[in-house]
């Protein structure tokens, strides 16, 4: 079947996608002080990819983003486990986190917290799982 010409959808996608991804990254990084965090950030990134899937088809999206989402999930899991297990090396209870203030050239003084790494793990798992579910259902015939 020949595809219909979705010129409006495709053009508005180009403008929208950037904002959605940017907003999801904002929500992810703001999680410590404002509502947000890894879960909602990951879900929103997955939402952006789903918008891509709606506009194009699975093969095109796979060419744009050549990743295996199951591996993304596994990497996210390893990141979260690794962050929590690294406390074993310092002889403190499991999952103990640390933070420090760092002076960065452009951003000024910011506090870096190991909980962010854990959250990054959550983010990857959420993106990976959501996209795996949607892709496997989509590919199914």
């Amino acid at each position, binding site marked *: 079947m020949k595809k219909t010409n979705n010129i409006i959808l495709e053009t508005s996608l180009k403008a929208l996608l950037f904002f959605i991804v940017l907003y999801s990254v904002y929500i992810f990084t703001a999680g410590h002080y404002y509502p947000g965090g890894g879960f909602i950030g990951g879900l929103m990134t997955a939402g952006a990819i789903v918008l891509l899937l709606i506009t194009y088809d699975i093969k095109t999206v796979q060419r744009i983003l050549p990743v295996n989402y199951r591996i993304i999930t596994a990497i996210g899991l390893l990141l979260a486990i690794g962050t929590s297990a690294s406390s074993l090396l310092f*002889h403190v209870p499991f999952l103990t986190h640390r933070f420090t203030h760092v002076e960065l050239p452009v951003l000024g003084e910011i506090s870096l917290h190991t909980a962010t790494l854990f959250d990054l793990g959550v983010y990857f798992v959420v993106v990976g799982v959501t996209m795996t579910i949607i892709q496997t259902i989509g590919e199914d015939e």
Partner: protein
Amino acid sequence: MTNLIVLPILIPLLTGAILIFLNKKIVAQRIVAVFSSILTMIAALFIVQKVHNEGIQSLNISSWEAPFGITLVSDMLSALLILTTSIIAFCCLLYSFKSIGEEREKHYYYSVFNFLLVGVNGAFTTGDIFNLFVFFEVMLMSSYVLLVLGGTKIQLRESIKYLLVNVISSALFVIAVAFLYSVVGTLTMAHISERVSQISADGMPGILTVIAVMFLIVFGLKGAIFPLYFWMPGSYYAPPAPVLALFGALLTKVGVYSITRTYTLFFYHDKGFAFQLLSILAILSIVVGVIGAIAYWDVKKIIIYNIIVAVGVILYGVSVMNPASIKGAVYYLIHDMIIKAALFFLVGIIINLTGSANLKKMSGLIGRYPGVGWTFFIASLALAGIPPLSGFVGKLLIVQGGFEGKSFFGAAIVLMSSLLVLFSVMKIFINGFWGQNQTYEGEEKAPVKWLLIAPVILVAISALYGVNSEAILPYIAQAADTLVDPQIYIEAVLKE
């Protein structure tokens, strides 16, 4: 090492994540899985020894002091259960290599297997009621996958039932925790126990009894007690033998453990209603279980109904709630995990050989497979509780506790159930192993020698467990002490 008690959760979790990367490399998966399972076993042994020497171990996760953070608590009961779990998991892995099939192995079988262990070990170790819920879900999600993996028709049908029942019981669990939280205002188990005893200084208030019954319903659904066992015979019939062994040995026992933990730690004030209800349901489970076990001519069904009997026996021991019966319940719980796994492995071998689960279609297996026959014979005797083997001491203590607690009827039922349990497994032995020698299709290809390793290890452990009960009883007694006197547990966690 401060983090010792987190290792039985962490090692399988890490393994499960790593195995996702290796999903097409079966040999690598097997090596990693066995290696991690041995590591878990060693960690569990260390924990048992440490708890034995130094008392209850508690770990405040992420360094938050006890009632405010999640606490992992390893008392003797959970340490022993984790050791048993890791032994069974190791045997189950060995059995899986030759029986589960490449197709399943490529589809994340070992990964999900490890996640199931995370759930089970976590549920045994946690000291926080909501964390218990989370570990229950980890365990259940993995069990859904293991149940449906392979996608045969019967698996699909039974998964739907299993999933539906467990989703409902999980929702009830959340509601029960919400009720409990609104009454006591805390989630750490030791802290809950303290608050509950403050509230019920003069008699337990009605709302707490309601919550106690809700917990009984929730964990009863997971642990298959009467009348909440209805999903089990069908669901456990569907998966292949190693998965079935894992389910039969571990999943229902987590429910039993949770009932034991909550009833001895939170609700021990209400001897009048909650414990009586538990006692009645336990006795009815025994009755229903033996009726099922002697009614069927299907080898899998017979052993599945024997799970319900064992759950009843253990919970009866808990409900009598005196030192002897609790000791018996703990002893019997560990024995039953080991022997049920062994029996399911053996039943798996029998089905593999004869190509059918129907007893009437098989006979004379002992002529060509004496190893399978005699292992099964010993396992049956252990299940029924014949003296030198492991089922004996536990049942003896439970019956003794029953008589001491003036609960003669229940103790008599436990005794009589042994007879019928023996009858039900001897029926398999007599019909399957004695009689006319026959040949079956596909029998030559069955890797019996390899498959027999796992049940032989377990039966040997069970025999040693029975023979060395003198050496093991101090450990069991230590586990029972904590259950009889919750103050030990509370002090170890809250460190007042």
